[in-house]
């Protein structure tokens, strides 16, 4: 019999297949990432100035921005509907001057510089009073929604509304805090470290787990052990151990799952009214390989069917030898 598990943050249920669980090896899915450096727009563009440069990391405005802050922000109504123009900013973070596709292959110092860049850009965007949320994220591989360019990059979006998932997460964590007067994520970190079976790897400051109610096979979360609601402020001073653990988990994906497409998103607290999130929210990073497709049931219900228990995903990732090929 399968199990139904509830995500304690947003209250979403997941069906975890048990008897019919697929073996971890069934998900190993090679993708082609080799591309011609001569065709790489990022390598061709090395000389042009970005809006910000830091230790080989270059930030530039997206050439296809879907957000734009050149006009003043204004909300209006259309009958019962609400609309505003797409205010905000959309930046591309070129993570290295070298033509390297996967962040897993960057040196730790370079990943550290990328994380510092995220924090710096977030600090700048949050000074804009119309910005409600800033998301730093990566699409790696075609199945994760990236174009197959072969040059490691990520994106930062600053938006003038609170996205649905952010509202869900902050509301759920807030309700838990109101009931227990403790941070839900701090409780989760304690329980996972004590319980061990869903821990993939940890260092002094961070732990990587496969969440109890995982939506996807090998879904992992990087949780800081120290409480802080905001990524930009919370990561300061901890960029090195975070870079080390990010490289570690991305290498486990690359070696164990044969270089799969993946996404990561930095989940941080909303920009406005920071004091209301200070005790209740806890920044973290969701990292997920894209190995399965979302079908009608998931779309229609928000209910996910995870074909492998997270304990099995964690055990598989724990056993990957990341030093074998590096």
């Amino acid at each position: 019999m399968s199990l139904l598990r509830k995500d304690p943050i947003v209250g979403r249920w997941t069906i975890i297949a048990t008897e019919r669980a697929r073996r971890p090896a069934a998900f190993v899915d090679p993708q082609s990432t080799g591309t011609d450096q001569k065709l790489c727009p990022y390598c061709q563009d090395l000389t042009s100035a970005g809006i910000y440069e830091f230790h080989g990391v270059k930030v530039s405005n997206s050439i296809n921005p879907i957000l734009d802050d050149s006009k003043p922000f204004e909300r209006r109504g259309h009958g019962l509907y609400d609309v505003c123009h797409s205010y905000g900013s959309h930046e591309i973070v070129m993570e290295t001057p070298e033509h390297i596709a996967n962040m897993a292959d960057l040196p730790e110092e370079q990943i550290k510089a990328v994380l510092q860049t995220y924090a710096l850009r977030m600090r700048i965007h949050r000074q804009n009073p119309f910005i409600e949320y800033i998301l730093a994220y990566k699409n790696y591989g075609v199945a994760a929604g990236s174009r197959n360019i072969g040059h490691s990059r990520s994106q930062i979006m600053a938006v003038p509304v609170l996205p649905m998932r952010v509202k869900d997460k902050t509301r759920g964590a807030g309700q838990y805090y109101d009931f227990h007067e403790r941070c839900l994520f701090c409780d989760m970190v304690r329980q996972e470290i004590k319980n061990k079976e869903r821990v993939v790897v940890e260092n002094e400051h961070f732990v990587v787990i496969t969440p109890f109610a995982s939506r996807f096979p090998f879904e992992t979360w990087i949780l800081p052990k120290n409480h802080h609601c905001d990524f930009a402020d919370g990561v300061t001073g901890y960029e090195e151990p975070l870079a080390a653990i990010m490289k570690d988990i991305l290498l486990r994906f690359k070696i164990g799952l044969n270089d799969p497409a993946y996404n990561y998103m930095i989940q941080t607290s909303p920009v406005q009214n920071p004091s209301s999130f200070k005790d209740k929210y806890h920044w973290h990073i969701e990292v997920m390989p894209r190995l399965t497709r979302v079908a009608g049931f998931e779309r229609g219900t928000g209910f996910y069917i995870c074909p492998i228990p997270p304990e099995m995903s964690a055990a598989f990732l724990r056993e990957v030898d990341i030093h074998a090929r590096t």
Partner: protein
Amino acid sequence: MPELRRDPIVGRWMIIDSDHTKSPLDFPKEDNTPTRQEICPFCPGREYQTPHEVDAVRPAGSLPDSSGWLVRTVPNKFPVLSSDGFLQKDGIGIYDQMNGIGAHEVMIECPDHEKGLTELTSEEMRAVISQYHSRFKQLSDDSRFKYVVIFKNFGSSAGATVEHTHSQIIALPMVPKTVLEELKGSEHYHQYRGRCVFCDMIAQEYQDKERIVVENSGFLAFCPYAPRYAFETWIIPKGHAGDFAQMGDSSQAHLAQILQDVLKKIKKVLGNPSYNYYLHTAPIGYADLACYHWHIEIIPKLTRSVGFEWGTGLHIVPTFPQDSARYLREA
């Protein structure tokens, strides 16, 4: 200029990428023509390959699990939830867990392997809707269940693993999250304005006209103002109706007609794309909600969702709903 739009039911914002809009020809094409007939367990004559049928539309006097059926419902051979046993709830520290009690059935919509829903005659299409209705009512009577979802995955990129035309029905021991969000949002709207938000949407869609795809005497099909996907289309009863189970015979005929009509238009405009649709209705035991209105959401699978959308729930849609509606209307 791109626009941010807010869904009036659940409050979800989305972005219309108006600077890089896509028309039907800009989406990659897929070949969803059926091919593998010789091994199909859903074809007539291979009824023994599926679990025993639980319901069917078949001529009077013909035996269960024999050929001759029009629509046939069988338990899923690989169910995600099991219908044997009782619900047991557990707490594990901060986490909650239950055993996987539920039901998971497959409705085979037509005996002919070569036909899809768009090729059925109007009687055959009516038989599909009547089977939806009868399975829905049957599963709603099980006191262990709180919600029944009917959904269809067509084409491999929409998650279909068997190409013979079929839909699925899953009964759940809780109300799923997206439905709870709609219930919460529509209740909030009802408290504030004393009206059903869906009825108000229908009224506004008639006023604006530009997002209407097609209508008949019972139903309206339109592209929602703040969609999550390009060419997303909803079918909704024109009169207030919270509960799918209470639909009468004439409404079933109207639903069969408009659903097939919309699917034909999608097939024609977008070149037989993969798609999903699913039914959203009131939870079991809440048939007479003044705030809620059942409907079907149809989503052609044209784009991949990227990290940004997963991380935020903020969808980026490359086609204005009025353009989607115009293409479909004119097909």
